[in-house]
């Protein structure tokens, strides 16, 4: 079972595909759950404390907005931990009320910097034929990962 980082990190389709074929999806929910279930100081809604932007300094410089650094404190360790990654390139939903375009650029940059890591670049399907290609590509990619992280 390999750990697969998904982008957009909140993607329903990617999260499902990865788990459907027996791997572990690393997305925003995993990081948020860890924060929500850890005792600390009350900091609603996402339990991000002033410590988190400091942790994000590992991935982004001090002059980068703390929103980016806070997000990177969630995504950075997951990118380091991942055995593979799937990126949907035309994902407008990753930039909006809960997203940040600069963080997305940094996440994709970090993923592409890891040359040894298998990476799948795809786009959302818009027709039935594209749906078949979308599913087949992901399945073939995940099948190639089998055994990488087996104990």
């Amino acid at each position, binding site marked *: 079972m390999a750990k697969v980082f998904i982008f957009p990190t909140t993607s329903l*389709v990617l999260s499902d595909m990865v788990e459907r074929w027996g791997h572990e999806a690393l997305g*925003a929910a995993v990081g948020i759950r860890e924060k929500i279930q850890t005792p600390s*100081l009350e900091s609603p809604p996402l339990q991000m404390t002033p410590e988190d932007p400091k942790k994000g300094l590992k991935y982004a410089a001090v002059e980068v907005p703390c929103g980016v650094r806070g997000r990177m404190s969630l995504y950075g360790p997951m990118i380091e931990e991942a055995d593979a990654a799937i990126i949907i390139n035309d994902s407008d939903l990753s930039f909006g009320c809960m997203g940040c375009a600069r963080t997305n650029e940094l996440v994709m940059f970090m993923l592409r910097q890891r040359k040894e890591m298998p990476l799948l670049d795809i786009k959302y399907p818009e027709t*039935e034929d594209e*749906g*078949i290609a*979308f599913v087949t590509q992901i399945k073939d990619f995940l099948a190639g990962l089998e055994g990488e992280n087996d104990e």
Partner: protein
Amino acid sequence: MTIKEYIPTYVGTVTKYVFIDSPNITPQTLAIRAYEISEGLMVKETCFGLQITGEPEQVKKLIVELRKVDSAHIFVKDRGFPPGDPRRCRANLGGARPGYYGHEFECGLLKFVSHGLEELDKKKPKPVPQMSKKKLDQGKLPLNRLIEIISNEEA
């Protein structure tokens, strides 16, 4: 500003969204199936499917069973918050929760993904019948029949 201590709830549990986008199965049908086999898990029915909270292993088992209902039209995703959490529940926020719009967008594409999954299943090679291990007395004279022959011979 006073800083309060945060004491988490539902520690050690996972919450999963189960989205159903099927012409044959409704969230209600799926919820009833989930209640039948949930064994103490928290199952919440929603307009799009279910939210399931509980021990990771138990949730995984339930998801495997639920997928059997309509595999190509059921989609599962992790959730960070437990259901009804006041920081995310729309009952407290007065509007859709922030993650809703992403789900709304992807739900519009599920029909293409479902079609892909169905086509993928059709391409599967037919399973070859497996030969079972040969039993020790297979093809040999049964003991009862042997006793019968001997007794007939003696008579």
